[in-house]
């Protein structure tokens, strides 16, 4: 796949379709793959990487990149195309300045997860059917794929590209995923249990802002939490409440816009399952206001900028489920 | 006024008799009108008043063909046929209230009568 992508990128650079390519390059370790911009065939040959650790969604970078001189090529996995579309809807990306090549993805590996199994010194990882063969400094380890895959990929919602100029490989389908199972499980707990669950999770937050910075929906020019005028500004955590406040407001601000790309949880250094907050909003929106997938198109109104005169009353919250 | 009976009829019919605006279209459209002592609109009105026992004693409850013309035509969705049906059920549910008992059947049988009619009648006239 990597070879096909590099040759595609080279061809598009050569015929002048694009002047730059946004892709990924290797970091310090084999599993540190980070987005990078390439401007020549040589740079591509030297650094372009696309492998099982290449999980980062590059859509958000295109806000800035698409405003620069010349057209840029980007490779989008199915989940990334939703973020991209959503950003077009919000007038953040200039579509004409981006050339999209859709690439298939059958899930990415999670180095943190592998490491949590006691495997260290990772040199490479090979997928082999339902297992992953990890080559380490200390020899080869094999573990089941589910134990090595990113959480967001395990509950993948779609293998379909909702926007692209061309595709490498076949397009997939929207998947009937089980992504709301955990939300449901939480909903079925008692309020006390839920409170304890979230307190133990959110209290781990160190306010590094990684979730915010990676989130394609959190693309505000200036975040309310950075703005002294907003009255809620706080950059460092002072106590448990502010984590609540930050994460609730963040989830609320992206509600109806979050495509469930899962990047927030992927990048969280404290492994807080932040996607469970977003998914709660998505689940509620789906059940209360009709199925809605942010980023599926570029024209529909998001559920929070829309209404129906027959919408349910807020007391539905008080009447349902476990107290 | 029999509160208990009224509630029972309202519940089993599922009809809202308060929606009636007394236009009489149900009775205007009823094919059994001339056979009936109390007509569909009177059923609705009397159920609203709670005067159910009078209706239960009347032959009218067996005259309704359940053709649902009144249900179809009622401008306000009152569903008079369901009210009649509910009153009939209330009558049949009383002890010895069955209109038709199995021993009556042989007498009714003749070559002309479709079996279906017997089955339907049995369903309609017994609890």
């Amino acid at each position, binding site marked *: 796949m990597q070879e096909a992508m590099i040759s595609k990128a080279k061809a598009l650079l050569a015929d002048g379709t694009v002047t730059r390519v946004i892709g990924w390059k290797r970091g310090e370790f084999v599993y540190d793959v980070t987005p990078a911009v390439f401007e020549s065939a040589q740079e591509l040959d030297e650094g372009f990487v696309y492998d099982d650790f290449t999980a980062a969604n590059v859509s958000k970078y295109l806000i800035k990149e698409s*405003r620069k001189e010349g057209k840029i090529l980007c490779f989008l996995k199915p989940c990334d195309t939703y973020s991209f579309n959503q950003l077009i*809807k*919000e*007038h*953040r990306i200039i579509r004409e300045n981006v050339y999209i090549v859709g690439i298939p993805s059958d899930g990415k590996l999670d180095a943190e997860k592998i490491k949590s199994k006691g495997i260290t010194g990772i040199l490479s990882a090979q997928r082999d059917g339902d297992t992953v063969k990890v080559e380490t400094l200390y020899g080869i380890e094999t573990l089941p794929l589910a134990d090595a895959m990113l959480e967001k990929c395990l509950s993948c919602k779609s293998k379909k590209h909702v926007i692209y100029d061309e595709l490498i490989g076949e397009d997939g389908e929207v998947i009937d995923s089980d992504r709301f199972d955990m939300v449901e499980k939480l909903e079925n707990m008692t309020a006390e249990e839920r409170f304890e669950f979230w307190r133990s999770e959110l209290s781990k937050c160190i306010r590094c802002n990684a979730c915010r910075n990676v989130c394609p929906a959190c*693309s*505000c*020019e*200036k*975040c*309310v939490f950075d*703005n002294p*005028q*907003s*009255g809620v500004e706080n950059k460092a955590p002072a106590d448990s409440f502010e984590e609540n406040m930050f994460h609730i407001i963040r989830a609320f*601000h*992206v509600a109806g*816009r979050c495509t469930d790309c899962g990047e927030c949880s992927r990048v969280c250094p404290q492994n807080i399952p932040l996607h469970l907050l977003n998914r709660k909003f998505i689940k509620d929106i789906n059940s209360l206001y009709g199925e809605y997938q942010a980023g599926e198109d570029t024209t529909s*109104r*998001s559920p*929070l*900028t*829309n209404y129906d005169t027959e919408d349910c009353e807020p007391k539905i919250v008080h009447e349902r489920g476990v107290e | 006024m029999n509160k208990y009976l009224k509630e029972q009829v309202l519940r089993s019919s599922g009809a809202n008799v308060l929606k009636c*605006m*007394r*236009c*009489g*279209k*149900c*009775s*205007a*459209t*009823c094919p059994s*009108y*001339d056979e009936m002592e109390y*007509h569909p*609109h*009177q059923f609705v009105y009397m159920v609203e008043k709670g005067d159910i026992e009078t209706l239960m004693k009347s032959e009218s409850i067996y005259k309704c063909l359940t053709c649902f*013309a009144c249900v179809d*035509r009622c*401008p*306000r*969705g009152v569903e008079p046929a369901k009210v009649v049906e509910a009153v009939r059920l209330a009558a049949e549910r009383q002890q010895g209230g069955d209109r038709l008992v199995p021993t009556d059947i042989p007498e009714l049988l003749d070559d002309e009568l479709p079996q279906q009619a017997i089955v339907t009648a049995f369903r309609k006239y017994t609890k």
Partner: protein
Amino acid sequence: MQRIGVFVCHCGTNIAATVDVKAVAEALSHEPGVVVSQDYQYMCSESGQNLVKDAIKEHKLTGIVICSCSPRMHENTFRKAAAAAGLNPYLVEIANVREQCSWIHKDIATATDKAVILGKAAVAKVHLNAPLTSMESPVVKRALVIGGGIAGIQTALDIAEAGFDVDIVEKQPTIGGKMAQIDKTFPTLDCAACILTPKMVEAAQNEKIHIHSFSEVTDVKGFVGNFTVTIKKKARYVDETKCTGCGLCTEKCPMKKVPNEFNMGLDNRTAIYIPFAQAVPKVATIDPNYCLMMKTGKCGVCSKMCSVGAIDYKQQDQLIEEKYGAIVVATGFNPIKLDKFDEFAYSHSPDVVTSLELERLMNAAGPNGGTLLRPSDKKHPHTIVFVQCVGSRCDDEKGKPYCSKICCMYTAKHAMLIREKYPDTEVYVFYIDVRTPGKNFDEFYRRAVEQYNVHYIKGMVGKVTPKSDGQLDVQASDLLANEQLHINADMVVLAAAIEPDKTARPLATMLTTQMDTNDFFTEAHPKLRPVESATAGIFLSGACQGPKDIPETVAQASAAAAKAIGLLCKNSITCNPCVAQSDELMCNGCSSCEKVCPYGAITYTDKEFRMPDRTTAIRRVASVNPAVCQGCGACTVACPSGAMDLKGFSNSQIMAEVDAICK
């Protein structure tokens, strides 16, 4: 440094009886920034206001808090007082310690505590108040009337009378509307044309009135005093400025089998037509669906006959844009379609007609020249049955839940006219209730019964069956006699419910006005503002607001005109300064605010910005038109970055109040 004055009102004993006003003034005097804190018997009295004014001057106050009755009561009073003393009126905050404190609580200690907290919240807020100035927005001295029926005509005439230009947009080729189709009017029985056509002519001749017939409104932008409206003049394939209305073309047109909509399809017209003799403008229109020239390219008779060369087969729809200060909606009504009422055999028998069809059948200019004949065989009918409430007062699924209001009276009229002209004809009216509130209305109905012997029967018709002998079997119940009737009728007339015109719904969206579930326009207040819509500058005239008869329609039309004139008389209007404002530096340009704005007050522009790294970047940013914004604040919550804020109720002001209350 803020210098805030606090003034606590006793309101006689209204406040002072349950709130220790002296203690409140004392407590608030220690709040940050407060330099003077006083109490007084009646703060709203002249001497009370003077006390405030003097304090503003003496202490050079930068904000004042009045602890008194509800701001809905006296906010304006104190704003004016502040302005008179040289303080911006929007630097005044009211702490509502009467309606929301002294009047509802009994215990002096707790009520006083609460009053202090309410006062503190107001002080906290006033710290953050900014001086605001109301914008003035100019008023375009021209009105638009949408709909050219009697409502629209009357409104236009009244506005023109006051000296303002007014445009009428009518979708049909002629103005006149439903009233032009009506034969006689109740309760006076004068002929509708005799009273309507002079008004039509008056409108045509008035130089202040401009009629856009065969036209539709396709877009409305702007706001009160300054609407920009796009009007589509549909191609009529006849040059309006040349056509003299001689009618020669309509006589010679070979295509004579076009259903005549003016006569409810009861007879035919030609492909080029003038709807009726007194049409205004009296200009021919070609129906392109039937015109042989337009369909086959072969004919051109009208073009040859026309001595002034008005025929133009290549005419195109034309869009015109015009500015208006006020818009009056007069889109009127239509009878409902009767496809859900098969039991009345409307679609099976030509002898079952609606009341509006009957109007045409009885009209001298109608298909039978005014002689009432049975449509099927053109014979004189001897028995006519009227059915009331067809589709009115129904379940939502079956018809309309409301009473159509006019049917009882026009049915009495029809019955009476028929009995008058044809005494040998028996007339039955099946009714549920006869509703005749109105001047001389019940007397009129009684005349139908007492003088003309119309048979009024309480009960509904259940079924109408056409019989082989051509008559109609009407099966109905007589609720008072408790019997089922069968009447052999020659004709059945259905009083079909009326509904708002289909064009009203898209129009309401364009105008951002509210409609009820039945698509009638909603008035700003059901009792006190019946001819205004909730959207400023949009007024309602006639049946578009609810079922109405002619006198009521005309009364409302004039009322709407008066409201429009009141607006047009002003040179400019003062806008509420508490409007949204976008901080361009923080705006993402994501359009969330624009989507929730009910007034279309938010627009986007691409602006160049100097970035921190000294580069320039072009960003899409929102800006709010303060003359359009009504200050609801929906955008402020939709905005994720907090770039959108509401003046007078800013995020920081509300949060300051929250803090003061919770602390």
